[in-house]
């Protein structure tokens, strides 16, 4: 591909962060542009319509569907409570063998069908609230749908994660980016914290994190089998697999964010250094990942300062992601997977690599001193 843009994952000490907080259905926005919000501020609210429960009245009462109307004691739009009599047969001479039918659910009568003899009772709606998730300022209101919350702060995007939105203080628990998190690193004082480690989190460490009440784990990698086994166990679903990688909804007690990939991979030094500089501060963390159709990457956000932004503040970072000589990169596939470097050349002609594939390549000087040729598609630009 001639168009070489490879926007990498953002790792930045200070950048403009915008989070869209959108309801799943139309509802009411509760804040205005310029309002300052905290992570727990409810910014929008709606009601998810209740499920309509179908009561098979004709079948249950032993009457024909066209006899249901005469038996009904309720009409469309009526509210009923559990146990209310909703239908009654006249019985013999209006006296004997009268049968009555009581509502099994509470709600509003929404459907009466002479065809099927069914009655539909719509249960009460479920309130759905959207909170701000991060400390910041409302920079945009989308009427009836949601808002955009903006702030200045530190942002670390991961490559993959599991678990949803959480809030906790950052604690560094390994000596450096190459040290793996084991269960001995995790102690009771880490309850409610976002723990940051190095190259890996072991299967037993995942279990220990859950037992001590850690709410977030950030590290370089995780062995695929360890994570799948933990999830299968935690979700009580033997053989569980993340399939096509749409995550974030797992009912597990913490969110996990890996910065580099699957396996044991040293966390990029500058990512580790940035997280270390944020130790003791409260972070918003979200493991939600979606690789396909609407890419979502997991993230750690630490708003900085007062976070007050005026509406319409421009983004400070250039995300065009054009490769050029001198661009800092990270290789994201074997044989140089995970190694950082700098672009030294961008030959325009196609080059045959070891797999015999003809591709556009770049020349790079890696941090370990080697000069290598890699497909352009196999690097990401270090952003931030």
């Amino acid at each position, binding site marked *: 591909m*001639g168009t070489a843009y490879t926007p990498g994952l953002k790792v930045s000490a200070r950048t403009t962060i915008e989070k869209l907080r959108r309801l799943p259905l139309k509802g009411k926005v509760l804040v205005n542009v310029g309002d300052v919000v905290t992570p727990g501020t409810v910014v929008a609210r709606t009601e998810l319509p209740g499920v309509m429960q179908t009561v098979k009245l004709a079948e249950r009462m032993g009457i024909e569907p066209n006899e249901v109307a005469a038996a009904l004691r309720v009409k469309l739009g009526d509210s009923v409570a559990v146990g209310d009599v909703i239908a009654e047969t006249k019985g013999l001479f209006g006296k004997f063998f009268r049968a009555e039918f009581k509502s099994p659910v509470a709600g509003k009568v929404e459907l009466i069908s002479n065809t099927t003899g069914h009655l539909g009772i719509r249960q009460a709606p479920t309130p759905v609230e959207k909170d701000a998730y991060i400390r910041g300022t409302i920079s945009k209101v989308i009427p009836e749908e949601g808002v955009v919350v903006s702030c200045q702060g530190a942002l670390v995007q991961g490559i993959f994660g599991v678990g949803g939105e959480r809030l906790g203080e950052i604690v560094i628990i390994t000596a450096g980016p190459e040290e793996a998190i084991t269960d001995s690193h995790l102690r009771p004082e880490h309850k409610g914290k976002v723990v940051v480690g190095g190259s890996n989190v072991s299967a037993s460490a995942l279990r220990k994190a859950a037992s001590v009440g850690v709410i977030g784990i950030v590290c370089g990698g995780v062995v695929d089998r360890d994570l799948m086994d933990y999830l299968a166990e935690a979700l009580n679903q033997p053989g569980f697999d993340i399939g096509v990688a749409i995550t974030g909804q797992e009912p597990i007690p913490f969110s996990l964010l890996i910065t580099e990939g699957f396996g044991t991979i040293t966390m990029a030094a500058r990512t580790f250094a940035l997280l270390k500089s944020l130790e003791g501060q409260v972070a918003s963390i979200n493991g939600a990942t979606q690789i396909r159709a609407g890419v979502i990457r997991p993230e750690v956000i630490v708003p900085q300062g007062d976070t007050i932004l005026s509406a319409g503040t421009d983004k400070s970072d250039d995300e065009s992601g054009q490769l050029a000589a001198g661009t800092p990169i990270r290789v994201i596939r074997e044989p140089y997977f995970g190694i950082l470097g700098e672009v030294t050349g961008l030959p325009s002609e196609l080059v045959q690599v070891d797999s015999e594939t003809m591709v556009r390549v770049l020349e790079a000087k890696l941090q370990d001193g080697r000069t290598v040729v890699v497909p352009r598609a196999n690097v990401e630009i270090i952003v931030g």
Partner: protein
Amino acid sequence: MSDNAHPHASTEPEQAIDTSNIRSILATDCGSTTTKAILIVRQPDGTYRLTVRGEAPTTVEAPFDDVTVGVVNAVREIEELSGRTILTGVDGRPNTPENGNEGVDLYLSTSSAGGGLQMSVAGVVKAMSAESAQRAALGAGAIIIDVIAVDDGRKEFQRVERLRQLRPDMILMSGGTDGGTVNHLVEMAEMLVSADPKPRLGIGLNLPVIYAGNKDAYPRVAELIEDRVALRQVANLRPTMENENLLPAREAIHELFLEHVMQQAPGYSKLSGWTSAGIMSTPNAVGKIMQTIAEQRKINVLGVDIGGATTDVFSVFRGIFNRTVSANLGMSYSICNVLTEAKVENIKRWLPFAVSEADLRNQLRNKMIRPTTIPQRMMDLQIEQAVCREALRLAFDHHKSLARGLTGTATEKNVGNIFDQKSTGQTLVDMMSLDMVVGSGGVLSHAPRRDQSAMMMMDAYQPEGFTLLTVDSIFMMPQLGILSTVHPEAATQVFERDCLIYLGTCIAPVGVAKDGDPCITVQFKGETHAVPFGSIKVLPLGFKVGEDGEPETADITVTPARGFDVGAGKGKEVSTTVHGGVTGVIIDARGRPLQIPTEDGQRITKLKAWLNALNIPLE
């Protein structure tokens, strides 16, 4: 099965374009990973030929959220390579018509980006109307995310919950023959009322629902749901037990796809305004090409388009077209789903080297999370090609289960077939009568060596008897599919000369024996070749000199050993004419079903021998 079961000419844009003076054609296909552009130019002799190709990452997602950005990037590559200026129209769109060395006469596009068209289908009986509904939706280019039926084994509340969670782009509702059941349809409508489902895209919009069931039930269904959804009635897709009428439902799906879904996808309404015809869904366009090949050559065809997210399989057997989409089998986004479904040992069985399960799993996960990366080492390429074999196999199994005759019909018995125990609903796929395999998609079209594509298709499909193997040269069938609806002549010329690459004929006897036992003897070009069981031999047969891509043909006589069949019966000789190609005539004596040693060392030795036979490098 009735003629109505042949959904020829699926949905296609109705165009009134004067093709008499088309000099240049730009066509793009926006895939889930990559946007591909081709430029076709009329030559001085009047024929149309592919001139250049460009590609760029698809930009339907953040931070771009606009499919036209990727289109412009791909076309810019075309501009650089061809020296022609194209993007000079309003808003930087492709300029039409051509003016000197600027612009093009025609701009067309297909798309499968943004998750494609995701549908739920509903029918009364799972194996009857719900299955017909699946065929209708699949044939229209949809991905089926749920099949609802009265006998699907779920409780009603489970169906309602599922419908709410999934948020499909559209629902196809069917069931009941005309004059048949009404109650089940009304119950289904009640279920929709209960779920009150919302579409995936376009907050606040009504969900499109196509009703293709018993026409007598429609008034009652409409009474229940027409205020809540965007309801449209079409002819019953199963008007009688013995008839299937899929075309009206398919047309409605395509129209609603363009009207509702595409208009909500990022940048699509803009892209629609740029094109000379409506945007066609990629699978629809590829299906068009497969049907054309089968019709023009009067052959049985099996086609595949293996992408990053999904694998589409097409077949035409006895004139009946079928298409299936395996939504979660693909080479990048869905690669780990292949791992889950196929199991790690089935992927490892195709690798000519030892690898630990942990390394293999981690490597595939890393491909999933960084889907656009390219294998740099030979072993990484071999791992991807091993996954491809399994994705092709699984998608083909799925296809065979749906490409079948109607179930539930009464079969007329006579003295001749009274002892025939075959039930209705048999698969239409018959490997011995298959004439041609067409492979498309990045992993097949861009394999460094064409022989690797031939081997992947042989391993995955295990063709029987005589089968011509071909691939799409650079993955441009979608663009030619939409072009065939506007300018069939140009589409055919480019397809024949620039798109279809002949790999050769695979000759595979059905049967098994011990390794090294006699299997097949071939008389070819005055020589006799005995090929023992468990091996592959390639006989050279290439292309005609001076004719673009036209394969050589040659007469061949094949004598299978006792117990083996190449189409005429066990041990019966067959004389025929075969086509050559990049690989040649491949005598595949590995057995059907294919016999792979289970012991690692023996398996690796065998794999290496087979790959060597096709001159495929090992490292």
